[in-house]
């Protein structure tokens, strides 16, 4: 399993998202090294198809496929909770589903 964690420093949500990812990996007993990459420029965002920070991919598949096609940009990515409320981090359930 390959896990990528892409982030942009200009958005403050990535430490929380990284902690949540680590928690879910531990809960599921997944022992894998997460590839972390910081995105610095708009050109990099476009090259990496980075729709906002943070973006997490498991074996190349975005944990939130619905948001993966958004315009590449250096911004905070919008996720949505099950009840529709916006959030700057994916939900635990999204991460669990992506890792299962």
């Amino acid at each position, binding site marked *: 399993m390959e896990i990528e964690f892409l982030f942009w420093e*200009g958005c403050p949500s990535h430490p929380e998202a990284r902690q949540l990812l680590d928690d879910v990996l531990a809960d599921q007993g997944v022992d894998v090294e997460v590839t972390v990459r910081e995105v610095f420029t*708009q050109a990099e965002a476009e090259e990496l198809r980075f729709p906002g920070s943070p973006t997490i991919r498991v074996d190349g598949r975005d944990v939130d496929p619905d948001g993966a096609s958004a315009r590449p940009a250096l*911004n*905070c*990515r*919008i996720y949505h909770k099950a009840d529709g409320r*916006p959030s*700057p981090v994916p939900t635990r359930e999204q991460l669990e589903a992506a890792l299962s």
Partner: protein
Amino acid sequence: MTIALATEAPPFDLPGVDGRQHTLEDYADEPVLAVVWSCNHCPYVQAWEGRMIELQREFGDRGFELVAISSNDADAYPEDSFEQMKARAAGQGFNFDYLYDGDQSVLEAYGAERTPEVFLFDGDRRLVYHGAIDDSREEDEVTQRYLRDAIEAVLAGEDPSVGDTPAVGCSVKRKP
């Protein structure tokens, strides 16, 4: 640099999503004025938007006015264009003025860095509170209602007990 507590509110003259120009003087009769840096595309703003609406609803008839300003570079972030601001205000039912600072001159005057970021002014238009709306983007986890408490204090003729907190949110998108 962000303006300091007790600083007089820098003036502005900006177009609103309602099709009118809005100046600082337009709000001169309101004893409490909150100028909030905002935008469309930020999930932190979206998480707090409902609370902005609720504060205006609750305190609007007691002399409080909330004014939201977006200064984001709409060339790089087209979701924050003036046209998109109009659409978001209508879609979310904003009950406060939502102004567009296209040349970022008002941003420079206030020194805002995040969205959302609050500048609360008293009746003399001196800055009495700056920072976050409250202490959690998750409404059911809020324990400190900084802006609400500050509004209540000013309406009671007192200084807020907390004057400055860190604003948590997206960076303001400055023009290159």
